[in-house]
């Protein structure tokens, strides 16, 4: 199919939008509400073009053979500028003073400041301890509502009212904490004006770093090392592990541990649980590392709660180990340690505050920073990541295998667990530990694996809407032995606390980097982690022991979100 754009003869495919056809041919059309990973809704009208003499939104108008499209004319420029002008006049003055997608659009439209005053102060919603909403910054682009609805099938937020009084609200007008919100933060990942952000803890951490007489310990999650660079001007997928460790030390942390260590620990506990469940005929086993998925399951599918692994997430296993095992080694009380974690995730903030996450007697993890917040902390402290030299994680909770690394990507927990479960059931190691069927960006991956003559069915879902489809099938009687669910598309590399996403390309770059970390490791199976073995020998006993159960496992509510 052919059409012309600004007189240029262009080939295009059926089903494409005008915007897609133009961008493929390097013709720029400004956009604002459009997000490449979501369905276009044509709300903002910043992308107007003329198609066969008619003014249309290019983001959601499909191409037709023989179309004549004009993307630039005095009239179009005026109309687009007016559209952006009206949007800019409806937000708080601070919103248009900083760099964001709205001010980008204003610059493109040649608009210095809005011509109208249509801003009314609105109440903020800081009820959730994971995600904060500030409608004073909202431009009603609809990305968050669509994320919550189509990507996650949670439907916690929606549009209320109409016309210039329309705004995003919790369902029934409730504050976010009282809705079905699972804290995944996907809304904050796509928000163009920071109207939705993580519940910020940067100031609290800054204050804690100045506190005397406390040991400041920090851990970083598997996916942070491949995404943090993006916030600080590096290319997507750059691995900055050693630099982060050095930078954290410079920022004032005494000890830097690796969440990849506790990911290995999680795998050892969870594979053990899997083997037990297979023996007892109690499959499927659902993974438990993602707190947003757990909130989702507990609210919408409480009948599956007994199927979720009782193993805590790597963050909380590390938290428990720091304030018990490590505190004992150092000879200090758990209350003398400030434990911070850097996560790709907003839901981890809520998880850290759950009543049962106090294995040490005090709250195991004191503060949780997202990847974006850590970048902000480094910027505030004037720490240039690029210039840092490389440092190593501290002992005894710093050693990890490749299996721990792949926790950061969809399918990774499954792959890591199968590497160990295969060994536990079969009695020998897998021939090829690269389990390719767990990898890739497909929303739902299903496969069979033969262990000791028995066939095991496994499924990997990412994005809660995909998880919902899978759970409905299981409800109807389909059987799987092992199921991994991650709330965020792509897994933790696409987490709600990560650098803002513009396309799947960034997720793929981060995934490649994660697999590079895995293949670069000498040891790639969790049960081979020498530090994990040592922790069992010195402290935990054996996998699934009473002590391990007390420190490394958790329980779930019968129905509804955990508190």
């Amino acid at each position, binding site marked *: 199919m052919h059409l012309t754009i600004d007189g240029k003869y262009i080939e295009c495919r059926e089903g494409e939008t005008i915007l897609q056809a133009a961008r493929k041919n390097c013709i720029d059309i400004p956009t604002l509400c459009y997000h490449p990973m979501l369905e276009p809704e044509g709300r903002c009208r910043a992308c107007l073009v003329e198609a066969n003499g008619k003014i249309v939104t290019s983001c959601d108008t499909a191409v037709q053979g023989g179309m004549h499209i004009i993307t630039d004319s005095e009239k179009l420029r005026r109309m687009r500028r007016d559209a952006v002008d009206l949007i800019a006049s409806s937000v708080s003055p601070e919103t248009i003073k900083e760099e964001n997608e709205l001010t980008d659009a204003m610059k493109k439209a040649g608009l210095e400041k809005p011509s109208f005053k249509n801003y009314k102060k609105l109440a903020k919603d800081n009820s959730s301890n994971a995600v904060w909403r500030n409608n004073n910054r909202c431009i009603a682009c609809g990305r968050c509502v669509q994320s919550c*609805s189509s990507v996650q099938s949670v439907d916690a937020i*929606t549009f209320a009212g*109409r016309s210039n009084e329309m705004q995003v609200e919790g369902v*029934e007008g409730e504050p976010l904490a009282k809705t079905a919100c699972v804290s995944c933060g996907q809304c904050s990942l796509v928000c163009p004006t920071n109207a939705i952000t993580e519940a910020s803890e940067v100031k609290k951490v800054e204050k804690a770093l100045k506190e005397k007489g406390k040991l400041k310990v920090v851990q970083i999650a598997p996916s942070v090392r491949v995404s943090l660079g993006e916030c600080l001007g590096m290319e997507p997928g750059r691995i900055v592990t050693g630099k982060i460790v050095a930078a954290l030390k410079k920022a004032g942390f005494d000890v830097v541990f690796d969440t990849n260590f506790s990911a290995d620990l999680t795998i050892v506990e969870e594979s053990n649980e899997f083997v037990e469940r297979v023996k007892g005929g109690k499959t499927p086993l659902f993974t438990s590392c993602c707190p947003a998925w757990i909130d989702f399951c507990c609210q919408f599918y409480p009948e599956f709660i007994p199927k979720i692994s009782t193993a805590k997430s790597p963050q909380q296993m590390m938290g428990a180990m720091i304030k018990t095992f490590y505190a004992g080694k150092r000879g200090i009380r758990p209350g003398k340690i400030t434990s911070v974690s850097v996560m790709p995730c907003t839901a981890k903030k809520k998880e850290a505050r759950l009543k049962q996450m106090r294995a040490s007697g005090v709250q195991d993890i004191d503060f949780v920073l997202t990847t974006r917040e850590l970048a902000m902390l480094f910027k505030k402290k004037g720490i240039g990541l690029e210039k840092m030299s490389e440092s190593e994680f501290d002992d005894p909770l710093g050693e990890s295998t490749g299996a721990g690394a792949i926790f950061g990507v969809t399918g990774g927990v499954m792959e890591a667990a199968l590497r160990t479960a295969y060994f536990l059931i079969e009695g020998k190691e897998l021939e090829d530990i690269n389990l390719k069927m767990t990898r890739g960006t497909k929303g739902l991956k299903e496969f069979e694996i033969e262990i000791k003559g028995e066939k095991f069915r496994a499924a990997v879902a990412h994005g809660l809407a995909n998880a919902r489809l899978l759970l409905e099938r299981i409800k109807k009687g389909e059987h799987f032995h092992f199921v991994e669910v991650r709330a965020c598309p792509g897994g933790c590399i696409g987490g709600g606390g990560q650098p803002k996403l513009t396309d799947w390309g960034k997720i793929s770059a981060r995934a490649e980097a994660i697999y590079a970390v895995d293949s670069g490791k000498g040891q790639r199976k969790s049960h081979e982690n020498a530090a994990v073995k040592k922790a069992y020998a010195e402290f935990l006993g054996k996998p699934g022991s009473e002590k391990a159960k007390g420190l490394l496992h958790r329980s779930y509510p019968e129905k509804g979100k955990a508190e």
Partner: protein
Amino acid sequence: MAGKKILLNELGLEQKRKGFVSKEKLKEIASKACVPESEAFSAATFYSFLSLEKRAKHSVLVCNCPSEQLKGSEKILGFLEKRLKVKRGNATKDKKFYLGETSCIGLCDKAPAMLVDGKPHAKVTIEKTKEILGKLK
């Protein structure tokens, strides 16, 4: 699309029956129409003739389309605010009247128009408004 038709139908019926749509009813209607609760909530807040709380015995909604405004809908609204001693968007203290604005009700050719307890009135004047109010108990 069937779900959405059911949704609006049911919301309208409930509004007529009770004068508002309660939270429980909203949930019930959403599940009947097979849409998420968020969508039912969104719809209920979108239409000015639907309300999520009991407003008042009578509802008076004046259309605020541009064509209505050109024909003097502001004057009517101003008169009603004075007469009922209430600002638009609120109910009178005795909970007898709710005064609000509504988007297009399809009577632009007979502007200004208003909806009183769901009944449309076209080409209203201050005189006519007094008459309509007088008939309400």
